[in-house]
């Protein structure tokens, strides 16, 4: 097994593209190293992307933030302004593992590992985060929701690397939240995960909503019917019930050691309602602060 640690994303992409055998990108390694140890993957080349400056910084852009793909969750969660703007996305990332894992784990690693239960992904989907991808054929921008296909399988082509993720500016009366269900309090994998992002007008009517749903299908889902149930309402109980039903209806879970179909389907709706309530509180608080923090 060869280990490379290039300084530019172009060099990294070239290394990956020219490898005849199995190649893997190494960010935090909290998924990859576990897979290596258990013998799940035996790559011929590992390309570490943590020495590429564009991938290790957080920069403000058009009122939003561009987060390098190799930025660890711990570093990200120390960025006060970013946390104030997208608390739901940050919480999703912050739930990953333990303090030790936080120092390494990245949102993009979480995304590209393509686990349906990846905790940071529903929040990014709800926020409509856009990934910038660099590959042998140049640069392209793709909504986060379009990257995972199935566990361990993404739409990235050979040689392609996610360079950064862009979170747009949050609106004045906007808020997001992420909730996951686990039987314990930490060090567990989501049985259901729900990320929501809502925007309201001055009269409190929901004008925009996105609901991302994890751990209930082969990949993270964007639930448009759940969003539709909210838009145009004042997030009253009737709207929330409709949204919960739409969220449950979108679930295509399996019965497994982590939960039953019945359980996951019901709890998805329950968590969605709870997440919207948190997001609403945040949106109102943000509005009362003049659209900041």
């Amino acid at each position, binding site marked *: 097994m060869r280990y490379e640690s290039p300084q530019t994303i172009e060099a990294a992409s070239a290394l990956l593209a020219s490898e005849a055998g199995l190649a893997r990108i190494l960010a935090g390694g909290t998924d990859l190293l576990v897979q290596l140890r258990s013998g799940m993957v035996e790559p011929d080349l590992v390309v570490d992307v943590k020495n590429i400056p564009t991938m290790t910084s957080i920069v403000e852009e058009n009122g939003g933030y561009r987060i390098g793909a190799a930025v660890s969750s711990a570093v990200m969660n120390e960025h006060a302004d970013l946390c104030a703007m997208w608390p739901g996305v940050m919480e999703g990332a912050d739930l990953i593992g333990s303090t030790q894992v936080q120092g390494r784990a990245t949102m993009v690693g979480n995304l590209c590992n393509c686990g349906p239960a990846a905790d940071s992904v529903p929040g990014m989907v709800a926020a409509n985060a856009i990934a910038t991808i660099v590959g042998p054929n140049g640069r392209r921008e793709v909504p986060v929701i379009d990257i995972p296909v199935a566990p361990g399988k993404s739409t990235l082509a050979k040689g392609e690397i996610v360079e950064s993720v862009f979170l747009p500016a949050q609106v004045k009366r906007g808020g997001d939240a992420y909730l996951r269900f686990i*039987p*314990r309090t930490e060090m567990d*994998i989501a049985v259901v995960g729900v990320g929501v992002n809502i925007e309201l007008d001055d009269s409190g009517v929901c004008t925009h909503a996105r609901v991302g749903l994890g751990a209930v299908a082969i990949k993270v889902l964007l639930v448009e019917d759940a969003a539709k149930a909210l838009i145009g309402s004042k997030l009253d109980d009737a709207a929330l019930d409709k949204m919960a039903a739409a969220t449950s209806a979108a679930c295509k879970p399996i019965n497994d*050691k982590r939960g*039953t179909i019945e*359980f996951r389907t019901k709890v998805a709706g329950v968590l969605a309602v709870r997440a919207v309530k948190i997001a609403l509180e945040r949106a109102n608080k943000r509005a009362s602060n003049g659209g900041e923090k």
Partner: protein
Amino acid sequence: MARNPDADSAPAPKAVKTSTIEFDADKAKTFKVVGSRPPRPDGMDKVTGRARFGADMVMPGQLVGLILRSPHPHAVIVSIDTTAAEALSGVKSVITRDDFAENADHHDVLCNIMAREKALYEGHAIAAVAATSKAVARKALKLIKVDYQILPHVTDVDLAMAPDAPLLHADMITSGVTPAPTKPSNIAGRSEFGHGDVEAGFALADVIIERDFKTAATHQGYIEPHACVANVGADGMSELWCCTQGHFHVRQVCASLLGIDVSRLRVTASEIGGGFGGKTTVFIEPVALALSRKAGRPVKIAMSRDEVFKASGPTASSSMNVKIGVTKDGHITAGEGEFRYQGGAFAGAPADFGAMSAFACYALDNVKTVAYDVVTNRPKGAAYRAPGAPMSVYAVESVIAELAGEIGMDPIELRLKNAAREGTKSSYGPKFGSCGLVETLEAARDHPHYSAPLGPNQGRGVASGFWFNFGGETCSTLNINADGTVAIAVGTPDIGGSRAAMCIMAAEELGIPYERVRTIVADTSSLGYNDTTEGSRVTFSSGMAVIKASRKAVTEMCNRAAMIWDIPAEAVTWEDGHAKPSGANAGEFEPMSLAEIAATASKTGGPIAGHHEYNADGAGVSFGTHIVDTEVDPETGRVDILRYTVVQDAGKAIHPDYVEGQFQGGAVQGIGWALNEEYIYGEDGRLQNAGFLDYRMPVASDLPMIDTVIVEVPNPGHPYGVRGVGETGIVPPLAAIANGVSAAAGVRLTELPMSPPRVLKAIDDAKVAAQ
């Protein structure tokens, strides 16, 4: 109580001895060191990383041993071809079933450590290799060709008992049934306990509740995987370093399986990262020895966590029915139960212990329990803290709670009315001696926890529990060093702070400070046979041996002082760490301290030591009562443990910190068992969750501080009144939590674990039923 986990059938009763009164009430009034909380002698090593556990030993020229395991839950092993593996460069030995001779004494152990005709569970060892590196060993495993003929499998206890179930052992005839069955089955044994006439008892009852219960198999979950290093010399002299609760037992079994004299095998117990009963038998040790013997080099084997789950010994899963009758004023008229436990691929599920302890908390006129020990295609179970009791007590204490509700009586009051006490004929036969159930119930009732207010969706549960406790073969030595310090050697591995307890008891007897006493766990060549650290027996048995060894050393020190003073030995007494003339008639001499006597020992007859060996009897039973507050999320079925109090009889807490630690540990393992831990099998008979991600033990943030109350009702069988405390603590929690969750959820839960999907379903089903 303890059972040789490797015994092929029920435990052979030890010779019955009448227990003597050992308790010294006067001494108990003047304890100076007993009851204090000094730092444990192994503490510094453990927090700095200097302590050496199973995998920390390295021997020169050591090889890496790996085990090939069956992917099938049940299959005939038609053939094993190791030619290619043996030919691989770096491979030094390969072994299979052919490298072990048949062994009548340890037949099941032999079949478990290396499969013979059949693989009986997923993870069953098929072959092993020793190689110069892990990479080579891994490659070699892939080169071993095994031809399996796959058989139908069964992992559920009730299905395994069905007449048409796949049969694991063609020669398994149920024991304990007359006349003996003519056909083999998966039921290894049936046993029955009780007295009186239950039918007549039920006829007197105003309310009778009968329910079915199930519990899942759980693993002890010790943090340290099994690990050992074996070194067999060219002359056959062998050493084994391993992580175990009983190195004498390991020596016995390994020597037998390898066909060597016990004197040729020296076993050293490493520090141990948890055992809870799971390290009372052998898994990898005979394999490492056989690999080493063949390779002529030391071999280390360390299990992965996956192997620990699949191929060490979890506890039994159970399916049970319990029926109890009570009068309106709270008199229990009869109790009956059937307890079906599966203990994996070989006989030995602790169903009999379950049946014996199920009703042990109650003084009953009419009681009957029946136990079935059943085999399935799962790893052979090992002991787990109070083996068998938590499940049966869960069933009984759940029904007791429901009965209390039915007759409108406080559940502690109902228990007090029927509590077993001194002189009660126990539900399993013998009469109880002095014991502390009533005291724990009263302390629980009077504890502020019991009357604290509860919020919405919260429920309080109470349950009591019991464990027999055990004494057993014990042998300890105490040496007085020339500088006045003391060195103790015990043969019982320290899994819960027992070295500190030994030092405390010796310091108390000798009248010297705790810091001047050190205790080690000696290897098998340094002491006579010691039973395993199990059955909550160490502070009781090794402790009594240390006390008696101390007393012998004291006698000798008095002799030496008498010699120096030139007076009769009877004229010398021992007080506060000094030899003194016993009175004015004995003469006027300055008292001599232990250090002074030790310093001159070379001139008075040489080294001074005390030794004691015996088969300890009189281990007092221990009862406990737990209170727990739970909160249930009615929309998700998630359970939070809000508050937890353990009240237990310790007889006498030698080192209260470690007694409290045992109480807390038992409660925490019980919380895991009650809420989320379970062995999950797929249709394919394979374990679905062989790792800590999906085998959900509680993490620290899941738990409140576990509050403890130590009750002390002295055990007459121990000089200081000690009772074992290691096991009782895991007996009540399953029931206490089930009672709390049922109260919070508003529906009776009868299956463990009470994982969120199960709790939510019960809540939703109850809603539908109510409509």
